[in-house]
């Protein structure tokens, strides 16, 4: 966190200094964060679930869990179906595994008594392709109406062998300190120290927080690593309470915003699932039936989607035409970054817009990604500098190696200068879901324009073309509402208008609405992103631009979605009876006199629902959530230790080795790596043998440095940043260095089945070999910022990575793979390819 989020890390320092908080840093390398921590835990790359599972095991075995919280606020008491089988029973598989399709049927993971999803449609679900089923971020669809407290059976003593609590206990029984030592390389004593420190920081008057970043995400089982962390937080009562929670440290200033107001293929703004062809896409009615929950916040699904369609299509969207639902694109396959990039490599993609993205450096198997660009007819790159994808055709390792040449690449490349952040107005959404507006600081140089300018004017031109050509294929464009006004000499759109559209308004008189509770399902409201609703509640009131912080939680500074709540699920900060768990950790509580929830934050709950409210039988919507059920996004109102629907690789996290690993899985013989993860193995995306390929004996992990920004377009081009880390280096332990003759400051060549790079050697005690399963495992660290352009250049470490897809969100495994390292510089030109080919032959 100190490395990549130095500004946010000030709060960790403040907690350490003012509150005497203990800072624990778990990382294979000793980084700037480790230097500031009380405890540093080096562990083997990709063994995180064993480490977290060890903590879960410790909490359960030693009865350190927050019992009242667990009983009331999680699904620990809920009974599972009799036919559910755990990975511990089936040697690494949960019940429902289809070995042929390599995919789970999650039916047996449902709560006992939950109707199966097909029941919604009165029969089995329509079958769709695996690629479509893997559409990652759609979660609602699988949360059937049965997942409510109403149908679920519970045992509040937590003793029933089929209750989630007991299943959890059994599942993690083998995650002992010995297993942690054996698999992660973390000595038992060190593990014990962490477990004690962490548990002692949790309870009614204490909370502990977990921060993670791509070191957890970029794994073939990344989602499950984070799930393991959330199980730990639920057991210790650290969710929905001040100082608790799990913080995803996002990679860019507004990555949170880009997921919220979606840039991903499988979600529409506000986490509404993109309809999947042939499944829930046949009609708006089907789509709503499939995705609407019976109780909780998602029971208003129809209001969100119809208001969204009204924002997109305006007056064209009517009840008669399903509010233009048919014009929304469908998921027909894997359209994730990797899906379409592989399609591109296969010549199936004609054109591409790259806006502020540099996959020529930052993408896994960057070699494949660069070469795929040569298969396009046209490529539009919008960036502040000429990033590598814009120059792949005349300046790239592929050109040097004779794989591509300017004479033969037919791709027409358009490079547009884009303005920087300070040269345009707009909002950021940070990891705390806080929207902050920034004004334009000055004009961009030359012809540079903002992305909003580009999109609005492109949309105008496309619409003008479509208007002149009324063929049915142009109907969606002709229906699209695109009336953004522009002003000034550059005809710049007013971004505040976009923010107002995101906030929402009434369609009849264009009155801005105050929040998502005003949304309607009859077309009388339009709202671009329901979760952001309330950010612009009245003319002239741009809440993200407010800068008068009134209290500790920063109310008055920016706007945290939803409804300016600074801590999600904060009803959990009070006991079931509505009183705070403790004076020290009070946040929101039930005010008996006023008969409403009140406190230091905006209550994330139904304001006037008393703590003792019990939903009557058959209650739907908000009425179906009890007064002591804080997790209102879930139809059953509680946090999920066991996720019975919504995940592709299992209801519980369990340890699998990385797709490429030096070691066999110590837990299961049947499945070395996550069976649902997709390797996308093919000749241009090969893998080492796993476990234990002798040709690639070392573990490799990529990372970023404070001094550079991701793919480097914004740092390698600036002298004041470039000079701080001017060259690609790799970090190795003194032990590895002496074992194979690597010299500090000299060059080394690193190879993987995908690529070959050279880097300066940094021999440092900050890396150390780990003793794992009786062997010494060497780990090598390498930053991935370098490429062919800019003031400082170097090989791209991402050339070494495979394209792989975690099954839920389709992220690649960048933090744990295998490689070889040898002293000396890499071969030049064609010889590099020959070197690689020989290496693969030997393997």
């Amino acid at each position: 966190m100190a490395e990549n989020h130095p500004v946010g890390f000030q709060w960790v320092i403040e907690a350490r200094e003012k509150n005497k908080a203990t800072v624990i840093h778990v990382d294979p390398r000793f980084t700037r964060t480790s230097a500031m921590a009380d405890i540093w835990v080096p562990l083997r790359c990709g063994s995180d679930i064993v480490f977290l599972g060890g903590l879960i095991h410790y909490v359960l075995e030693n009865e350190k869990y927050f019992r009242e919280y667990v009983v009331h606020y999680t699904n620990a008491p809920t009974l599972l179906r009799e036919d559910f089988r755990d990975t511990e029973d089936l040697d690494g598989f949960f019940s429902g595994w289809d070995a042929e399709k390599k995919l789970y049927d999650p039916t047996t993971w449902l709560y006992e008594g939950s109707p199966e999803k097909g029941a919604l449609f009165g029969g089995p679900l329509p079958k769709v392709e695996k690629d479509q089923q893997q559409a990652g971020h759609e979660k609602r669809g699988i949360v059937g109406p049965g997942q409510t407290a109403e149908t679920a059976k519970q045992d509040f003593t937590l003793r029933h062998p089929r209750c989630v609590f007991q299943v959890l206990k059994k599942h993690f029984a083998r995650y002992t300190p010995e297993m942690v030592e054996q698999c992660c390389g973390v000595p038992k004593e060190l593990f014990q120290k962490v477990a004690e420190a962490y548990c002692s920081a949790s309870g009614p008057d204490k909370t502990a927080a977990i921060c993670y970043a791509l070191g957890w995400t970029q794994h073939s089982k990344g989602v499950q690593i984070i799930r393991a962390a959330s199980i730990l937080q639920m057991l210790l009562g650290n969710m929905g309470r001040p100082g608790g929670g799990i913080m995803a440290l996002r990679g860019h200033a507004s990555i949170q915003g880009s997921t919220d107001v979606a840039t991903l293929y499988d979600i529409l703004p506000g986490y509404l699932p993109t309809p999947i062809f042939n499944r829930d896409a046949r009609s708006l009615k089907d789509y709503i039936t499939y995705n609407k929950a019976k109780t909780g916040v998602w029971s208003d699904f129809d209001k969100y989607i119809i208001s969204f369609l009204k924002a997109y299509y305006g007056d064209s969207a009517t009840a008669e035409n399903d509010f233009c639902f048919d014009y929304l694109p469908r998921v027909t396959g894997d359209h994730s970054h990797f899906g379409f990039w592989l399609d591109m490599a296969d010549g199936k993609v004609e054109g591409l817009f790259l806006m502020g993205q540099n996959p020529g450096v930052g993408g896994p198997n960057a070699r494949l990604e660069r070469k795929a660009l040569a298969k396009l007819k046209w490529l539009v790159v919008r960036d502040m500098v000429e990033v590598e994808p814009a120059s792949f055709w005349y300046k790239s390792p592929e050109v040097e190696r004779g794989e591509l040449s300017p004479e033969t690449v037919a791709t027409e490349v358009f490079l547009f200068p884009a303005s920087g952040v300070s040269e345009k107005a707009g909002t950021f959404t940070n990891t705390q879901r806080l929207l902050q507006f920034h004004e334009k600081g000055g004009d961009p140089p030359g012809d540079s324009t903002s992305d909003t300018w580009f999109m609005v004017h492109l949309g105008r031109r496309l619409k003008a073309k479509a208007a002149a050509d009324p063929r049915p294929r142009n109907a969606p464009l002709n229906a699209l509402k695109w009336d953004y006004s522009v002003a000034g000499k550059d005809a710049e759109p007013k971004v505040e208008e976009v923010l107002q559209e995101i906030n929402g308004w009434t369609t009849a008189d264009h009155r801005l609405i105050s929040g998502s509770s005003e949304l309607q399902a009859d077309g009388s409201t339009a709202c671009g992103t329901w979760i952001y609703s309330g950010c612009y509640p009245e003319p002239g009131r741009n809440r993200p631009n407010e800068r008068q912080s009134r209290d500790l939680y920063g109310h008055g500074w920016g706007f945290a979605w939803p409804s300016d709540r600074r801590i999600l699920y904060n009803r959990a900060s009070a006991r079931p009876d509505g009183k705070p768990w403790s004076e020290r950790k009070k946040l929101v509580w039930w005010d008996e006199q006023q008969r409403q929830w009140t406190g230091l934050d905006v209550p994330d709950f139904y304001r006037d629902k008393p703590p003792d409210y019990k939903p009557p039988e058959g209650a739907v919507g908000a009425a179906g959530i009890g007064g002591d059920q804080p997790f209102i996004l879930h139809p059953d109102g509680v946090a999920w230790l066991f996720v019975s629907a919504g995940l592709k690789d299992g209801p519980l996290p369990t340890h699998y080795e990385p797709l490429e690993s030096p070691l066999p899985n110590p837990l299961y013989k049947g499945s070395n790596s996550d069976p649902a993860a997709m390797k996308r193995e093919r000749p241009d995306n090969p893998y080492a043998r796993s476990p234990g390929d002798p040709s690639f004996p070392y573990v490799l992990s990529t990372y970023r440095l404070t001094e550079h920004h991701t793919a480097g377009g914004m740092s390698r081009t600036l002298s004041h940043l470039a000079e701080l880390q001017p060259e690609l280096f790799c970090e190795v332990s003194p032990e590895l260095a002496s074992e194979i003759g690597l010299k500090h400051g000299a060059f080394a060549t690193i190879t993987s089945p995908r690529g070959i790079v050279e880097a300066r050697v940094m021999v440092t005690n900050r890396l150390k070999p780990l003793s794992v399963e009786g062997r010494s495992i060497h780990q090598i660290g390498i930053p991935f910022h370098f490429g062919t352009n800019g003031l400082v250049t170097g090989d791209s470490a991402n050339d070494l990575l495979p394209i792989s897809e975690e099954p839920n969100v389709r992220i690649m495994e960048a933090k744990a793979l295998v490689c070889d390292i040898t002293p000396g510089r890499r071969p030049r030109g064609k010889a590099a390819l020959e070197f690689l080919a020989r290496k693969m032959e030997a393997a």
Partner: protein
Amino acid sequence: MSTATNLQGHSGQTTAFLTDSTLCIGCKACEVACKEWNGVSADGFDWSGFSYDNTGAVGHSTWRHVKFVEGNPQPGFGGNAGEAISWEFSSDVCKHCEVAGCLEACPTGAITRMEFGAVYVQPDVCNGCSYCVVACPFGVVQKNVEDGRAFKCTFCSDRQRVGLEPACAKACPTQSIKFGEINQFRNEAQDRLQELKARGIEDATVYDPQDTSVGGIHSIFLVRGDPRTYNLPPKPEVPTIYLKDGWRSAGIAAGMMVVAGLAAFLSTPAKNGKRLEGAGR
């Protein structure tokens, strides 16, 4: 108080930096903010191999410099695990000495004492003679051979004049660099020292030499271990104390040699002559 306070050039000012290295996360924001504000150029794209430090030392083109020291395990926070190592970061800067060697040595009057106590090299007067370079007991001021003149930290006098704190202090995310009133900082540093010791960080020290001919500095440091590790000499002296009536010129030569020797002994390797060794030393 040192008698040196009576010598010419005493600032009479009380503004100062307090750089608390135990709060420094090594982000180099101070270094970059300084260069950006003051329009200082980059000084080459050379990978040094000295841990994460690639700018070497304070010099004509690096007025704030963050040093990275990989060392042995130390008790207290910061890699305290027995088997772990320590990694210290510390941001160095001009000390704006009460009795400034550079100012005393400058024959052209280019170096002057400004308001706020800043020791300032006037670029339009400096002729590049480099007397100041050898006269600085901290190895701070340096000649830019391409430009021909000497440069160093200005105490952000231009910012101070309009009520802003120096750019480095402004940019520091963890308040490792603070800017304020020296007497308050002296108390604060002592309090912090006691607190750190109470937390088991026995090797913390406040660097604030007062009983030397330098007569006090306006950049107080709180570091762990031997201050010399961070380019902070135990007893900095102004070369002019070696001057005696009638032996003036001989004294200058001798003093310069002593200081040059001292500087060579203490400073990190020069940017050009970078040594390559294990970063983990």
